[in-house]
């Protein structure tokens, strides 16, 4: 136990030393005669810090460790505060104040739009929500929650139906015989070209059967037996093929994410490549 503590202390010392040296070297590298020394020191620190944090996150791949914990906790704190500030400045100051108070608007330097009584409502709902912090009046916050849940449920119910559901249903209306001019023409024009009649017809059949069996798979109140059993089995096959294909397709995009990080480490920080 004592040994492992000593080892981790040695590692810590080595890491600190390494990044200190890196900071100094980076500072020397970016400093030139025209620039203020303090600025070079500061910029070098920020670049080194970002590199340290990058490596700290990567170290998670080996196992959970103090460096990852540090980066994680810092990240959580800083990002929560960041969004708090963005929300405050852009929404409270940018959207709400200009409709409520002239004097506050001018204090914060936003153009006053005139008093609008409708902006009292979110203010009240917001304050109701904050009542949660009180143990006695906490239940009042449910009014605000009820408004939020009711509005979003109603809002999204129809909009999803329109954008995704109906357009998908209507796109399923495909002809199962593409440009049908009889069997003779079908055989004479048979080809594997992607825009050919055979492939188009086959594709439309696959789409129809895929959608049909997929929907059967999602039936909840029918046992998967007999016809339903076969159809739902085909359904889950099609689903699995799709999942495999999507997975394979994404691999490429995910690997290219790494290129950006490698460029940061080797180019911006270490300066190994130009």
């Amino acid at each position: 136990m004592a040994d492992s503590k000593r080892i981790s202390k040695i590692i810590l010392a080595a890491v600190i030393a390494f990044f200190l040296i890196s900071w100094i070297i980076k500072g020397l590298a970016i400093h030139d005669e025209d620039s203020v020394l303090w600025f070079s020191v500061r910029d070098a620190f920020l670049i080194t810090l970002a590199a340290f944090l990058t490596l700290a996150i990567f170290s998670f791949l080996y196992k959970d460790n103090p460096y990852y914990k540090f980066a994680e906790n810092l990240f959580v704190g800083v990002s929560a505060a960041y969004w708090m500030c963005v929300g405050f400045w852009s929404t409270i100051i940018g959207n709400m104040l200009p409709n409520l108070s002239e004097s506050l608007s001018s204090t914060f330097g936003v153009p006053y739009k005139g008093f609008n009584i409708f902006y009292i409502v979110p203010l009240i709902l917001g304050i109701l929500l904050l009542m949660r912090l009180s143990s006695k009046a906490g239940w009042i916050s449910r009014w605000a929650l009820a408004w939020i849940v009711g509005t979003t449920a109603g809002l999204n119910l129809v909009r999803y139906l329109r954008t995704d559901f109906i357009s998908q249903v209507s796109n399923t209306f495909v002809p199962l015989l593409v440009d049908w001019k009889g069997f003779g023409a079908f055989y004479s024009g048979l080809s594997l070209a992607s825009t050919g009649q055979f492939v188009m017809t086959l594709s439309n059949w696959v789409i129809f059967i895929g959608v049909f069996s997929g929907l059967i798979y999602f039936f909840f109140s029918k046992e998967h037996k007999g016809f339903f059993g076969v159809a739902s089995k085909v359904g889950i096959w099609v689903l699995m093929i799709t999942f495999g294909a999507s997975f394979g397709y994404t691999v490429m995009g995910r690997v290219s994410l790494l290129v950006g990080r490698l460029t940061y480490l080797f180019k911006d920080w270490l300066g190994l490549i130009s």
Partner: protein
Amino acid sequence: MKRQLPLMLVFVFGFAMIIQYFIPHQASEWVNAFFMDWMMIIGVFALALGIWSLTKVSWDKVKYKKSNWQYAIVTLAGLFLMIFFGFDYFRHFSTPVGSNNYMYVKFYQHIVIPIQSTMFSLLAFFIASAAYRAFRARSLLATLLLIAALVIMLRFNPLLGPLQPIMEDFSVWLLNVPNLAAKRAIVIGVGLGMVATALKVILGIERAYLGKD
């Protein structure tokens, strides 16, 4: 009152928003725009609750010396430093879209952005380990998953030689046809599930989220 009023609010506003969708009139668009704005503003109030929750949980960790309490100090330090810089209005502030404080911007650029993109790039590793572990020909379904993934992954591989264009055509077909069919089935099902859930909430059948006492 404590329980009935919220349920009524859900019902009234839920149906109001459904009806609003079918009305193209200017008044209805106006209502919609207001609701969107309100939601954003309430969101910021809720964010204050969130920050409170984060602070409290972290503070308790430090206070009661729970495991890893030292790192909770890092969270709190990051949080309050960033809030301090972000609200440093009276010295540097200029626009209503965010703080122009130098450290605020630099913290974002050199802490948030690098960690975020590194976390994102971990996916390259996880996608590899997940593929290795899960793509085994254990069953018919697993084999289908495996084969489809391999076909797509191999489609651009120059090592395939003359097979490569065929593989590419087949991949495109796979992505455009069976893929489309399955996604469509899922989307249709999801649509119905959403409508059912929303209706249950609006009708007050599903009310777990509204509390009891």
